[in-house]
């Protein structure tokens, strides 16, 4: 009988769901606070990427880019998106860890929203993406990165980067739940994400790819996101008018539209799969 009164006493269903999400988000944020090394080490790798590309490959790239476009300004949007995507790996790793420790079983036996474990984890990891993006912005500034457009465009670009990270935390969540071990999640995500990140315009203009790879590179979601951020921060410098290398760069309107479409598609598809997998009994 106490079961019924318990149910009645329970706040509204929506309120309860929101509360579950918050409890789980808080739990994961506390973990970040207690393990600050996690954040530091996950930022070191992208910083090394920046140094590698700017100071090692940068000289060569400067030769092909139009003189009005500094390579670092071309590069950083790619690095921001790449960092956000790689940072999202943490979601799957964390879930696999929870699964192995039996925590997921406990959560699944509790009268909580079925979406809360994933929603809380992805939200907390997106906060981490947010912080890492800011850290990367500082590093970028130090190596000479400058914005060519206004503050509003920059803010929009920032939001897109964090949103991409958020979409990938769901990809990562699905990988974590389905692969179940930390090692498998890391290996699988790296293998899948690698071609998307590198066969994109993240580091080189589309025109430099061999023709058979160009169709993939052109519509690869990473290209779409990176190009959107690039147009928002470089403006007309990153357009067909500047250089034949940028002949295939789409207009900001088209890019925004495609970006949103890819983002919504990823989010819908992988959150659906993730929650379904979580429920699966």
């Amino acid at each position, binding site marked *: 009988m*106490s*079961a019924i009164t*318990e*149910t009645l006493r*329970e*706040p509204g269903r929506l309120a*309860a769901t929101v*509360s*579950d999400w918050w*409890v789980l988000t808080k*739990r994961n944020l*506390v*973990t970040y606070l*207690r*393990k600050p090394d996690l954040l530091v080490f996950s930022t070191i790798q992208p910083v090394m990427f920046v140094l590698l590309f700017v100071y090692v490959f940068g000289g060569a790239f400067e030769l092909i880019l139009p003189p009005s476009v500094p390579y670092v300004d071309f590069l950083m949007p790619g690095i921001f998106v790449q960092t956000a995507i790689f940072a999202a790996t943490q979601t799957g790793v964390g879930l696999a860890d929870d699964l192995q*420790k*039996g*925590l997921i*079983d*406990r*959560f*699944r*036996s*509790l*009268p*909580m929203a079925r979406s*809360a474990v994933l929603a809380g984890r992805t939200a907390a990891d997106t906060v981490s993406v947010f912080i890492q993006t800011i850290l990367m912005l500082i590093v970028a500034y130090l190596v000479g990165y400058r914005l060519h457009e206004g503050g509003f465009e920059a803010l929009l670009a920032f939001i897109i980067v964090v949103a991409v990270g958020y979409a990938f935390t769901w990809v990562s969540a699905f990988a974590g739940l389905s692969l179940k071990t930390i090692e498998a999640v890391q290996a699988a995500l790296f293998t899948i994400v690698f071609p998307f990140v590198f066969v994109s315009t993240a580091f080189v203009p589309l025109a430099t790819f061999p023709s058979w790879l160009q169709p993939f590179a052109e519509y690869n979601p990473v290209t779409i996101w990176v190009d959107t951020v690039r147009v928002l921060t470089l403006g007309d410098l990153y357009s067909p008018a500047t250089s034949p290398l940028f002949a295939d760069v789409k207009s900001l309107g088209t890019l925004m539209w495609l970006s949103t479409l890819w983002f919504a598609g990823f989010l819908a598809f992988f959150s659906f799969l993730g929650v379904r997998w979580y429920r699966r*009994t």
Partner: protein
Amino acid sequence: MSDPAIVVEGLAKRYGKVEALAGIDLGVPPATVLGLLGPNGAGKTTAIRILTTLLHPDAGRATVAGFDVVSQAEELRHVIGLAGQNAAVDENLTGLENLEMVGRLYHVPAAEARRRGEELLERFELTDAAHRTAKTYSGGMRRRLDLGASLVGRPQVLFLDEPTTGLDPRSRLEMWDIIRELVKEGTTLLLTTQYLEEADHLADKIAVIDLGRVIAEGTSDQLKARVGGEVLALRVAERDRAPDAAGAVLGLGPGGGNVDNNTGEINVPVGTDGTAILTEAVRRLDAEGIKLADVSLRRPTLDDVFLGLTGHAAEGGGDGDAGDEASGDGDRKSKRKRKREQERVRERT
């Protein structure tokens, strides 16, 4: 309130080819303890996972506190508590934070969740460690915290899956005290264990489970009575003579008995003829020149019950065997028995 707290009817589950549960029936009256006793791979954990809504059964039905485990899973989760095999606590949270989190997920208001958390920590002697992360806890402390987490929601029915596996003897005794107290307060408990001693100490009723089937059910005394009368326990001085000794004495009782070639121990159920059989056994062994290190007549333990029922001891591996049909086929059974013997030997060497 006389309705059973747990009802299980024909529950079955298979994983691919492996039949984890081959149709079990159980009933647990409120405020009692059912001990689900069986070796690894017997299907104990599968049963718990189904009853706590973590797994859907392939066939059969089950209710817990009146709620169907499939169609009323949502309601059911409000009234149960689960502590699984591995202490499921968040290592990066403190003891108190762990309990508060679980309380909040039962939708207990924050202040109340904190109060219950503090209460449980106090009760399980973790107050000093309340503000330390669970990472720093010992195995026994983690188990107690985990048990605490399963109690935050004030469950009517509590499920404990091998609550003392991996604990040192002292922590195990502490755990037993805690569990006994809970039951005194009126919680219905379903407990799985590989330890006969544990079931004997804690459970009102015991269901012996092997290869996905309940092969015996009753109170500890009833199960012991099934072995009948007393057991003659022998230990030979030279282990390599154990097979010879077994050959000499195993036929003496009304049936059954077992030998462990590794320890040189032989157990023979002797019914009510204890003294006569004891004398005969000693005479025969003496005639064969086999020296004894120990000999006694004793009341049967659950170990004897398990051996009598399954042909193998309760400890030791049964993993991977769960797929075998538990048929009455003698040949097959003895093959399985041999396989188990081999496994036991491998485990000990």
